[in-house]
Each structure stands twice: as C-alpha cells, then as structure tokens.
C-alpha cells in the first residue's frame, strides 16, 4: 500500500465547475499537508499549505484536512481553463529538513474545457 493515494484521473470538467480533488494517506505522523500544481514539463508550484485538521481558503481554492480520517481535499471554485494542470498532494512530518522531505500522491490530471 502506498503511503499517499491519489486518483490519477484524468478529470475533465467544463469551465465554471467546482472541482474536488482528494488524497488519502496511511501515516498518522504526517503534520503538514500541501497541494501543488504542476503544468506540463514544469516544476511544481505550491497552491495551498495547511497544518493539522481544518479548512483553509485562498481565493478560488479551499483545502480541507481531516486527520481523523487521514483524508485531504482541494476544492477549486469557478474553474478556469488556466487551471488545467496536474495537481499533486504532498505531506510531511514536522521539523527541520522534514519540511522538504515530502511524500507525494501520484497526481491528478485536470482539464477544464471552455
């Protein structure tokens, strides 16, 4: 069993739709949870960064963490064609170099069509 499971999709939605992306994990020691967006042939860029359970909102993006269920989600409201990318969930332990020692999901390929 992988430490982090993420449905690779692909996911295709019309412009303006609400997109829901999810990951489950098995290591209860994970403390930090992140969502990265990766355009084709580019490095990942951080979208959302959360610590512990709860919700965090930034513009059209909302990240949710449920540590009791070992489940994290990313919601994208009013999706745009420019949101078309691969979305990677990632998580880490706390402290020192752990912030960069990330365990990633496989990534979900999202296409938003006009």
């Amino acid at each position, binding site marked *: 069993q992988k430490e*982090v499971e*993420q449905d*690779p999709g692909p996911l295709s939605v019309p412009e303006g739709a609400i997109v829901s992306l999810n990951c489950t994990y098995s290591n209860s020691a994970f403390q*930090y949870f*992140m969502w*990265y967006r990766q355009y084709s*042939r*580019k*490095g*990942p*860029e*951080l979208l959302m*960064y959360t*610590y512990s359970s709860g919700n965090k909102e930034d513009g059209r993006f909302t990240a949710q963490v449920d540590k009791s269920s070992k489940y994290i989600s990313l919601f994208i409201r009013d999706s745009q064609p420019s949101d078309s990318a691969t979305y*990677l969930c*990632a998580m880490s332990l706390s*402290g*020192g*170099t752990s*912030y*960069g*020692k*990330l*365990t*990633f*999901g*496989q*990534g979900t390929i999202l296409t938003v069509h006009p």
Partner: protein
Amino acid sequence: SQTIHQWPATLVQPVGSPLSLECTVEGTSNPNLYWYRQAAGRGLQLLFYSVGIGQISSEVPQNLSASRPQDRQFILSSKKLLLSDSGFYLCAWTPWTGGDTEAFFGQGTRLTVV
C-alpha cells in the same frame, strides 16, 4: 529574492553513459537541498537531501549519487546510466531556519536514457 536554477532542461543519454545534473540556489544561505525524481505516471519520489556542504542523505537505494560541493550547489550524478533512470528530476530547497515553510522547486531536467 530567492531563485533556484537547474540545468540542463532536457537531456538524452545512452545507457552506460555518465550523468551530471546541477542545481544552484540564489539569494539565500545554508539552504536544505533536495533531489526528487518523477517517473512517468507517478508522483515525485525523494532521492537525496542535504543540510550542508558535504552532507548527503539517501532516501532510496539506486544507481545515482549526490554531492554538495558548495553551500548553494547540489549535483546529481551517475557513473553508468540505466534505462530505469529515465524521468523528470527536480531540485528543491527549504530555508535552514525551519519553521512552517514550503519547499521551492526548480523547473526540472527531463532525462531520457536510450
């Protein structure tokens, strides 16, 4: 501001040939540095990390090695490439001070071993 550079962007190498990928970070001192690999259809996997000059930790056994000859320089090497070494290699850094922080990724090197 801090920036991270990786080169080359694309590389095609024959099986059995040597490899050297370079990553440099500008605008910060004593960063923690990381090498990740992204194989086709898979998430990113941490290969090596470094907390200082000459200090390298390996996360997975493999045909590759890493070195950190200078504070802001991180090199990924191989003496003899295998077909299975093909992938997208990403360098990342985090500040040495720790605390809540994201990992910043370079734009990656796409390596194809033929």
